């Protein structure tokens, strides 16, 4: 991957992560907020992969994007769904 392409991918991905993180603060629907949090984790794991940190990338994908999202969803089930 050329440095220019790398920079473009990192900047666009990082920009999406920042926008998503701000959206999570203001969104009313809890389910959407949880899914967007999972998207941020997944983007972070792609970032780690771009930085040649494959170990960290897979850890982030499995724990951050899958297991943590699942626990958030169950917590949402506990507090009633549409809070």
């Amino acid at each position, binding site marked *: 991957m050329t440095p220019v392409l790398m920079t473009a991918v990192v900047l666009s991905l990082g920009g999406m992560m920042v926008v998503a*993180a*701000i959206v999570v*603060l*203001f969104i009313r629907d809890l389910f959407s907020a949880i899914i967007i949090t999972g998207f941020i984790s997944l983007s972070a794991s792609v970032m780690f992969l771009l930085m040649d940190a*494959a*170990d960290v990338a*897979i*850890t982030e994908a*499995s*724990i951050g994007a*899958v*297991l943590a999202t*699942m*626990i958030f969803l*169950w917590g949402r*089930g*506990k507090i009633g769904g549409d809070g």
Partner: protein
Amino acid sequence: MIRTIAGLITVLLLGAAAAYVIPEMQMKEDLQGVGYTYASSGMEETGSANLVTAVIVAYRGLDTLGEVVVLFCASTAAVLILTLFPIGLKASEPSAIVSFTSRVLPAPVLLFGVYFIAHSQISPGGGFPGGAIIASTFLLVMLGSSSVPDSHGKLPAVEALAGLSFGLLGFWGVFKAGQFLNNAFLGTGTPGEIVSAGLIPLISLAIGAKVASEFSGVFTAFRNTRS
């Protein structure tokens, strides 16, 4: 609304701190000190082709043991709270997509998790992510069945046994080489082969079993506790 604004202010402050610090960071062209030692002689000393695993399990094995203890405390507390205050999730009938996925996917994902743990000394991998992947297969099976799994204390037994074996592997080094968590006394082998890198594969296996059973235990507690 106040909480939203407080959160936004916190994020902005953290962002300002990062923006202040990051320009000061300089990527060094050559490694120095400990990093240089790890990178230059790590492969010969530990026999691990994956330097990340060599640092995590061999050089910083004691830190990893502490991390495992922290994880144990966290999962114990989570299971305790979930048992004392049942959250009463409604177990709903899985949809057709979920029940089909939960029959097809677990076997390959489980295999990938085991591969991930077993090959941590050769390619990117390790006990923590591998254990999490294995736990996600149990999660998938759990989501696909409407009945609540009953582990009869098998998961805590696996967890305790794995944690104990990590410590015992450390003490094995004390008796054989006079050093806790010594990695080299079994022989380091050829870097790149699956039976290489001394104690690293065994410790990865212990960590993987422990993490997998811990996460599965937390999930079981989530599903089991219904009021």
